């Protein structure tokens, strides 16, 4: 293996350390949910995305290490930066564990309902909800909706036709027929379901200050 391997993705070089670490933390938070979702829905497809996010995590971890080494000038620097590296390692370890969870698909978890039984009993459940054409959530961006603030449900992925959007960005606009993979409590899910089926109108608030 070459020592001076350039990063796979050139644009990573332009990311700041802060951006690298933020992305690592974000991935570490969504990847475990996705791994459980892969088991729960017995989906190789979601599993493949977990592995994809996992290799993204490796790239980021690699990049952050290089930056730390370049940034270290004094002993004091090195001590502080080693701490930062340890956090990055932690995030990377979480994504590795998520990859291991997905590999359990090979053991045919469908044949042993225990796993889905446990996942269905969890305090925060992972569920699917289809967006009806009656729902006024359609055509709106995730940013304008703030689904998590309104319902407490976190959207971990969206299935649109045969395509999946994982860990959707704020700019994503919902469409009729989207299947939302969400995570949260029973209470929150019920609330989201009412909006997504069009039983209730999405609340509009007068001019928000921020």
């Amino acid at each position, binding site marked *: 293996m070459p020592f001076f391997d350039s990063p796979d993705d050139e644009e990573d070089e332009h990311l700041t*350390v*802060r951006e690298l*670490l*933020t992305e690592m*933390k*974000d991935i*570490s*938070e969504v990847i*475990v949910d996705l791994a*459980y979702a892969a088991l729960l829905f017995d989906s190789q497809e979601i599993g493949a995305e977990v592995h994809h996010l996992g290799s993204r995590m490796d790239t980021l971890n690699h990049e952050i290490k290089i930056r730390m080494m370049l940034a270290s000038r004094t002993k004091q620097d090195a*001590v*502080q*930066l080693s*701490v*930062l590296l*340890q*956090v990055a*390692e*932690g*995030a990377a*370890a*979480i994504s*590795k*564990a*998520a990859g*291991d*969870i997905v*590999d*359990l698909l090979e*053991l*045919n*978890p469908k*044949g*042993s309902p*225990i*796993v889905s*039984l*446990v*996942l269905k*009993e*969890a*305090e925060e459940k992972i569920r699917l909800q289809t967006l009806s054409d009656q729902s006024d959530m359609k055509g709106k961006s995730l940013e304008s909706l*703030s689904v*998590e*603030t*309104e*319902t*407490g449900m*976190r959207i971990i992925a969206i299935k649109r036709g045969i395509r999946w959007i994982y860990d959707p960005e*704020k700019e994503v606009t919902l469409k009729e027929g989207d299947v939302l993979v969400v995570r*949260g*409590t029973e*209470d*929150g899910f019920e*609330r989201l379901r009412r909006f997504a089926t069009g039983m209730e109108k999405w609340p509009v608030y007068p001019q928000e200050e*921020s």
Partner: protein
Amino acid sequence: MGPLEEMLLEIKDTSELMVDLAYSSLLYNNRDIAEEVNQLDARMQELENDIQEMAVQNAVEDRDIKKALLIIRLAQSVGEISGAAMKIADVVRRDVPPHPVIQLSLRETDVIITAVTVGATSDLAGATLGKIKLATNTGMYAIAIRRGRRYIYGPDQYTMMMEGDTLYVRGPEDGEQYLRDLANGTVHLEPKDLK
């Protein structure tokens, strides 16, 4: 659910709480929270051992080797997650001031973990989480509550909040200020919010 399912559920919930608390210990550079992560890990180890033992025992009885493997490996992976949380929280237990970039990175994410203290005149004092509909009204979920020296993990709708409680919550940043105002009593819920 049988005891094995209960234990699997507990390690899953515990590992998630550990990750949440680990990141939040970093964000606030708080040793107490980091210490909690440590203690939860002890519980994790115990559960992991019990799960392995029970899974093997079941396999001897029902000869379902795949099922036992599935359970043992799942428990192991969940254990790795808690190990990662330990690694993250360990940073706080060292005597090194955290690099400012760490705090900035944690702040920058869409979902934050924060701590608020319940004031005497707050609507939250003396009310259950279910009554307040904390998640619905603020978008923030209580992941743990600290009461004096005691911690309540994974509080549910029947959990009562009391004056002086520290709520550890996670949710989108735009819900934070409202929750903070609600907790210190400068803002009150309207009757329609409680229905």
